[in-house]
């Protein structure tokens, strides 16, 4: 009989999406904060 353990499967995929998404967001934030400075007019 196939074990019923969908909860673990969904939890893993949600955690991984949050981790990858969180890291992508952190890169986006850092890239924005470091936008090349324009010389003063």
């Amino acid at each position, binding site marked *: 009989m*196939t*074990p*019923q*353990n*969908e909860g*673990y*499967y969904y*939890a*893993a*995929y949600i*955690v*991984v*999406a949050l*981790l*990858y998404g969180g*890291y*992508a967001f952190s*890169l986006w934030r*850092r*890239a924005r904060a*470091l*936008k*090349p*400075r324009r010389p003063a007019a």
Partner: protein
Amino acid sequence: MSRLSLVAAVAMCATYIRVFFFTPIDRFQGAAQKIFYIHAPAAWVAFLAFFLVAIASGMYLWLRDERLDRFAESSAESGVIFTTVVLITGPIWGRPVWGTWWEWEMRLTLTLVLWFVYLAYLVLRSVVDDVQMRARYSAVLGMLGALLIPFIHLSVYLFRTQHPLPVVMKTSRPSMPNDMLLTLAIGFFATTILYAAFTRTRYRIATVRDAQLGDDA
């Protein structure tokens, strides 16, 4: 968003859709077996990332080109993220299948050590101010850390371990049905593209940061 990042996002969405809707459930392990399609690709990419850190670090020590140091830094950070995924998804898969979240056996323990080594690598980079010294020290640590990779891969053959033997990365044919193998291949592709997108973005950040530090000096 760069074109590479867009491709990575689409590829990861395709992996999720393939796993959720088009991949059969394993009769013996149940749905938890599907964790394999994000766990194994993350492990592969983590090894790739740290291997490239070692190559770039060795070349930095030889050529003293700061672009190599920046690449090593970027790849190490990506590698830590993918190793974190491995260390989180492994126990979530292990709990329903092995009956335990964690076992202090060789492959799991060495993977945890690998994660700590490259975490130390990133901490080292953040605490040493001298640019040349930071690059030299981290290059040595980056190369030494990668020595763990072959041991982690071979640990399932060399020691009694609860971790299963490889089903794909072995000399004989993969021991999986074709529809599961296709899902795994999509996962490998998507995760590798995601690594490339993360590392390239991180490299660009490091390049701008170093240019601004140069202007401020």
